[in-house]
């Protein structure tokens, strides 16, 4: 029998016992709806995470670390090149080498440390990071209140919004993200901030060195690599800007709340957590960096630059890696949500089997007649398949609509709740077109599978037996 005939007969048969078939189809719809609802939640959360990641402004940056560094970012990184022990040290010549790679705008060392900052005699412990002057053009600093550092060596600081709030004694209320940077900035701009930090100082150099003295000779540095003492220092910084950076976003591997010009930070020789480990390394006459941030001309070239740096024997980390692991996480999440969502669909499938088996009993005679007038086993089987498939497609379409509606309602409800809690509204739910197609096809597929047994049973029906009883 041809497909149009099959479809026509199947739909006619479905109409004949409208109530029962409608109930079965509704069962499928509920199953598909739960599947769609679960998967669209997973997808929505994934998109939410991706949006946050993109906001971090890191998508044109590759962070490079030495393979000797055990604290690697990319845990499942492919290990090509030399083994960790023999791999190269991330020092100044290497930084310059990286900077010469094609498509690289600049490569600057990451300097970050936790230290104490005093503002109006109150100590605040926080993470400080150095910013290259190129960061001025970064999207993240577009909205800075005040101005960017006047020079790469200026003793100036830019504060992150949350830290500015802390200095002003404003406890940020959770969710109330509406504090305007423009309001925070005026009382702080131009004020002085005293930074106390631990300076790493070579043992044999004169202790009279000031923090701003950048005349450190290569000889000093070689000694510093081998043995040094730690000296407590203080530096007065002028607050020049307040930046509206998202504190939750990832700015480099660690988040900082106070930013210094890179040139200045390099001269401070602030004791960094990695320094202790450097002790175990061969003494070098160059400063060794724990990590170097590489800015790429174009986000699309991140991968090629990453690969080039990996070939040099370093570990790299970029937003691509971050989104990759996030995607992996969400894949697993989607599978779990999908399994839960499918449970209702599995129940619905049993409904299909039940309905069709009932239909065979009811239409026993009809099947016998069809066979007597020439229907083959295949025709009968296909007819039952078509009925199962039609219920599947109808249920799928209704189910997708239902799932979408459920999603909208929950989204709305969640956002009403979030608004009451003073959180900004979020979009947790996404039903992409591929999910619509997938859900309908999936529903069609499982319905056909459910039709396997009834269709086979109908096809095997003995026409003599079927016609015998009135």
């Amino acid at each position, binding site marked *: *029998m*041809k497909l*149009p*005939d099959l479809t026509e*007969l199947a739909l*006619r*048969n479905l109409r*004949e016992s409208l109530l029962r078939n409608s109930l079965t189809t509704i069962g499928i719809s509920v199953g598909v709806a739960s599947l769609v609802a679960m998967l669209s939640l997973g997808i929505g959360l994934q998109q939410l995470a991706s949006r946050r990641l993109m906001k971090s402004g890191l998508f044109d940056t590759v962070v490079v670390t030495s393979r000797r560094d055990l604290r690697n970012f990319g845990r499942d990184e492919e290990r090509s090149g030399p083994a960790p022990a023999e791999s190269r040290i991330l020092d100044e010549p290497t930084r310059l080498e990286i900077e010469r790679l094609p498509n690289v705008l600049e490569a600057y060392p990451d300097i970050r440390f936790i230290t104490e900052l005093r503002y109006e005699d109150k100590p605040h412990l926080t993470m400080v990071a150095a910013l290259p002057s190129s960061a001025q053009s970064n999207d993240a600093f577009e909205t800075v209140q005040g101005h960017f550092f006047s020079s790469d060596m200026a003793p100036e600081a830019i504060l992150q919004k949350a830290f500015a709030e802390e200095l002003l004694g404003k406890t940020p209320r959770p969710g109330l993200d509406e504090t305007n940077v423009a309001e925070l900035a005026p009382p702080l701009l131009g004020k002085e901030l005293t930074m106390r930090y631990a300076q790493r100082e070579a043992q044999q150099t004169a202790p009279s060195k000031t923090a701003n003295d950048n005349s450190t000779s290569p000889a000093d540095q070689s000694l510093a690599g081998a043995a040094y003492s730690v000296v407590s220092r203080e530096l007065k910084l002028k607050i020049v800007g307040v930046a509206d950076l998202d504190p939750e976003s990832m700015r480099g591997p660690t988040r900082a709340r106070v930013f210094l010009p890179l040139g200045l930070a390099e001269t401070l020789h602030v004791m960094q957590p990695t320094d202790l480990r450097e002790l175990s390394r061969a003494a070098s006459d160059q400063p060794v960096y724990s990590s170097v941030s590489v800015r790429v001309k174009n986000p699309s070239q991140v991968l090629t630059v990453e690969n080039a740096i990996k070939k040099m024997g370093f570990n790299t980390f970029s937003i691509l890696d971050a989104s990759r692991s996030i995607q992996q996480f969400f894949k697993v999440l989607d599978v779990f949500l999908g399994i839960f969502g499918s449970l209702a669909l599995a129940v619905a499938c049993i409904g299909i089997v039940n309905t069709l088996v009932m239909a065979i009993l009811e239409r026993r*005679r*009809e099947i*016998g*007649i*069809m*066979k*007597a*007038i*020439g*229907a*083959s*086993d*295949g*025709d009968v089987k296909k007819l039952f398949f078509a009925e199962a498939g039609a219920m599947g497609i109808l249920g799928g379409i209704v189910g997708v609509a239902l799932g979408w509606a459920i999603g909208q309602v929950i989204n709305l409800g969640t956002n009403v709740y979030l608004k009451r809690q003073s959180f900004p509204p979020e979009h947790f739910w996404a039903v992409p077109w591929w999910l619509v197609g997938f859900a309908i096809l999936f529903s069609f597929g499982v319905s056909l599978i459910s039709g396997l047994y009834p269709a086979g049973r109908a096809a095997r029906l003995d*026409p*003599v037996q079927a*016609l015998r009883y*009135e």
Partner: protein
Amino acid sequence: MNSLDRPSQSSAPAIHTTAIQAEQVCRHYSMGETLIRAVDGVTLTVRAGEFVALLGSSGSGKSSVLNLIAGLDRPTSGSVIVQERDLAQLSREELARYRLHTVGMVFQSFNLIASMTLAENVELPMRFAEVDRGKRDSLAREALMRVGLQARMNHRPSELSGGEQQRAALARALINRPQLLLADEPTGNLDSHTGTEIMNMVREFNQQLGMTVVMVTHERALAERYAQRLIFLADGKLVGDEPNLPAVNVGSHHARPDGERP
């Protein structure tokens, strides 16, 4: 003009051609521990274009023989050869094709599909035969016209009288132009007037279209009036096989203008 006037095979089959050849056919069922010999060693031959009546009381095995000829059932042993094909050797798929193209069946209880209109019922075998959609409508209309039901085409079987239903069943049986018309008590549910009407149609098909007809009945009078040969069954065995002269003579008028008689 009428499609039913053009059966797929020659409309004047040679009388000597064998249409059905059953050889020592047995059909045994086991019901619990007892073996039921529904058909027990039946041997019979039906010539092409012949109108044969299978007679016997209920339980004599006449319907079982008909089902074996119709390809609805397979013999336990023996062979049923229709048009040089042994039905026992055919696959299920081939048997279905045989039922579709070679056999037309009418039943005592009409066996129209209740949810379909007459036109749809008549069209159904053409769907299985994958006849072009465009042709089906006109063929079904013609077939119903031939049995005088053109005005009832869009009615469901439940809206019709028994006679009308059986006429529709006849139209359906003939729609794929089979060479064999098998009728299982075709008048069993009809009053005598309507029964005669139906039987006249069957005879018309037999004589005008040259179809071979095998009719199962327990009414000897009916068989004697229409069939050219009477075959008697009892307890699954063939107990008599005799020509029915009056019917032969009526039939010879149309089917055998040469008057040749075995």
